[in-house]
């Protein structure tokens, strides 16, 4: 009994330590909380924010980035398709710009490796903004404020590259931390309700987690739309955009393959899917069960999952 007090002290320490750990340690889950804000040059971010909201980037000055990536709609468009500078409908539903920096590729079919490339493609897209870079650079250069800001932020001044980088820098700051689920993941076990926890469990059990995982709850892989059933046959009216990644790789195996979208802020970004066919989260979850998981969910399980999905909405803190 010589070591009695020491053992008691150690047990006490162990108990305190364990309880502290169990209270606040991050959970080891397939979903990871959002990282701290990416460290971006403030001058470039401010510049990018201005450009993001500037319709002069489009050919006729009608639309800006923010026209389709709406601040009041979770960084996505409320319409099924977006309307380009000339009134034409875009090929797919506009995905959200929020947390887009965490996607491993950009666009539904992942044709852009970086945000800069994404900006480049959208500005030159004949439906979306319809600009040529020479015009954009000229218009931006003519603005004295831009001229000064670019001089300050970039040694090379206004160029296509710096415009792309400024917008991308801004977009890299558009993260939505502090969702209730992230707080839960960081160890705050009371951040989400029991039902929501149950929803998360179902989310994992039904296999949603197989694709919607990682820090962005998706956005890190491609998947065929309609693994367990032919979604496009059921939906009908096939469009070119439905070919998905095939348009990029021209591999038959990539037909109908799309980037798995992030589920962060999913409650805000209806309608869903590349075709905007699901008007509600409920409908979207149904489609997922049917064509991706190939199984039928109990109604209460589906409801729980939808409740869980609502906990993924984070704070934009007025950044958009």
């Amino acid at each position: 009994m010589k070591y009695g007090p020491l053992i008691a002290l150690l047990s006490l320490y162990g108990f305190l330590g364990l309880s502290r750990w169990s209270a606040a340690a991050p959970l080891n889950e397939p979903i990871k909380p959002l990282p701290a804000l990416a460290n971006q040059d403030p001058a470039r971010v401010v510049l990018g924010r201005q450009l993001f909201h500037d319709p002069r980037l489009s050919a006729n000055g009608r639309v800006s980035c923010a026209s389709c990536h709406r601040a009041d709609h979770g960084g996505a468009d409320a319409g099924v398709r977006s309307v380009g500078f000339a009134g034409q409908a875009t090929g797919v539903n506009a995905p959200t710009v929020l947390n887009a920096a965490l996607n491993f590729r950009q666009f539904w079919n992942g044709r852009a490796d970086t945000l800069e490339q994404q900006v480049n493609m959208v500005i030159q897209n004949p439906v979306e903004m319809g600009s040529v870079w020479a015009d954009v650079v000229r218009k931006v250069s003519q603005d004295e404020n831009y001229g000064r800001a670019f001089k300050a932020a970039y040694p090379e001044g206004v160029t296509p590259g710096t415009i792309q980088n400024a917008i991308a820098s801004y977009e890299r700051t558009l993260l939505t931390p502090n969702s209730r689920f992230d707080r839960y993941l960081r160890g705050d076990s009371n951040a989400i309700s029991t039902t929501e926890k149950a929803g998360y469990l179902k989310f994992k059990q039904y296999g949603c987690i197989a694709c919607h995982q990682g820090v962005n709850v998706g956005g890190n892989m491609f998947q065929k739309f309609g693994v367990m059933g032919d979604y496009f046959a059921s939906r009908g009216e096939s469009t070119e955009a439905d070919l998905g990644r095939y348009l990029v790789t021209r591999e038959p195996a990539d037909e109908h393959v799309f980037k798995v979208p992030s589920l962060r802020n999913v409650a805000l970004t209806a309608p869903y899917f590349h075709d905007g066919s699901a008007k509600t989260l409920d409908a979207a979850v149904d489609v997922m069960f049917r064509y991706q998981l190939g199984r039928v969910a109990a109604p209460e399980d589906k409801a729980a999952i939808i409740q869980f999905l609502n906990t993924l909405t984070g704070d934009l803190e007025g950044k958009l």
Partner: protein
Amino acid sequence: MNLHPRLKWVPITFLALVLASILGFLYIKTRGYDSSRYYETVALLRQLKQLDAHWELDVFRSRMGIDTSYDSLVDPLDSLTQLWQQLQRIVADQPANDRGPLLRISDAYHRAVEEKTRLIEHFKSHNAVLHNSLAFLPTAADDVEKSIIRNPTGGNLPAASLKVGVRRTLLNSLIYSQVPTEDQASDIQRDLTELSREAGEMPQPVRDSMDIFCAHVQTVLREQPAVNALLNSIAAVPTASHLDEFDSRIAEGQRDADSLMQKYRRDLLIFAAGLAGLLLYAAIKLIRSHAIIQRVNHELVAANESLEQRVQERTRQLRETQSELVATARQAGMAEIATNVLHNVGNVLNSVNVSANLISTRMRESKIPRLADAARLITDHSHDLAQFLTRDERGKNFPGYFDMIATALNAERTALVEEIQHLTKGVDHIRDIVAMQQSLAGAACLVEPVQVGDLLEDALRMNAASVARRQVTVSRDCSDVPTVLLDKHLILQILVNLIANALQAMDSVVDRAHELTLKAQARSGEEGPRLCIEVEDTGEGISSDNLPRLFTHGFTTRMSGHGFGLHSCALAARAMGGRIAAQSLGIGQGATFTLDLPLNAAPAPALANL
């Protein structure tokens, strides 16, 4: 080498420059190679390889279900891109001959990475589906059983058979997921067909759940080989081997560069050794030269000493010779002086001789014997003196006779006195000449105020006999010449000489009048006031050939001359700061000698004192 001393430096400088540039070249070559870039590249390649291996490992972890998110398969993409860009920059920095192969390897590597990325994308898609179906299979089997229980049919046997079939298929599928074989797949496929047939007789809910079960089993059968094939393909992508190839290629370049540098180092060492040898050689040379210089120096010192002795000896001899010479010169000088004096004295003696002759002649022709005759007559007639004086015829003439004798004797005495004065003057002149020679020996001049006119008269008188003999008409012009300060005897000597010469020159002339003109005038020249005395004759003249030689010692045109007169005149004139010039239009044209002297006017008070 018989090079100019300055040219000698050219090859040495050139050699030094060549050696220095070789040294510089080798030094730069040994320094130029920077191995840190190689190690940087190696580090980069290691990093790439490690990243690649990790990526592959993460694929397997995902396959095993250890990793539940695919972020780990996505995250390396950015790093891989960045590192590949670094690699490209390194390739661009390589020497041109290495760049091609390295570029090929790095491109091949990049293509492999792209292929791997593509395969991993497919893997993620298929793996997700496979995992889902595998995870769901037991639940799906349970769902089938539950639906059978919930929907009982007529016979128990088909239901039990179906349940067993589902269980077996589940088990086989799970085994297949671990050990996929073709046989197993075909067995499962066969079982599935059987199950579908059996389920066809079941109620709708059972058929639905059976469809779901079968679909997932089919999915497993489809995805399992696909995933495995993808895994094999991923493992087979030669990213690592390309990196190894790059590494070995770079290492080869490094080895080459290293050996090249070693070579340059060796060269540098050899060169340095050569230089050191050269230096040693130069040092030895220097020491030898130093010894030689030392030796030569000693010899020189010795020679110098002997030379000095010889010089002293020679100096002494020279001094002796010089003193001998001086003595000889003194004798010669004395002889010259004696000649000079004798000549001048001779000139004066001439005049003294004339005077003496004159006196002697006078005395011979004296009336004194007549007086003695008269006295004898008186003595004879002393007894009858009165008678005699009054009566005798001769006696009667006595008074007149005495008167006449007295007058004659008086005149005689006067002439004699005068002549004796001339004689005395001549003797004085001789005395003066002798005194002057003595004083000349002491280089002193006796300067006194002189009337030029008197001088000319004196000079003429000293030649008076010659003048009279040759019937020369003398004209003088010495008006407006002030009293001047001169060495009277020197100038008298010159004038006597010049007049004597002029008179002699006229000896041979018979066809015209003998005229001697003496002119003295004061004039101001460039050198200040001058006194010019001209002695002009109408004699035989001087040929132009002789003119320049006139005043040289020993030059004469006369048989009896000794060529001393004009020379001594020139010397005397020079002693007084003047000069003598001769002009003649030629033979038979007469000649003019001009004595040109600085004019030092005697101060008036001094003149009054005389």
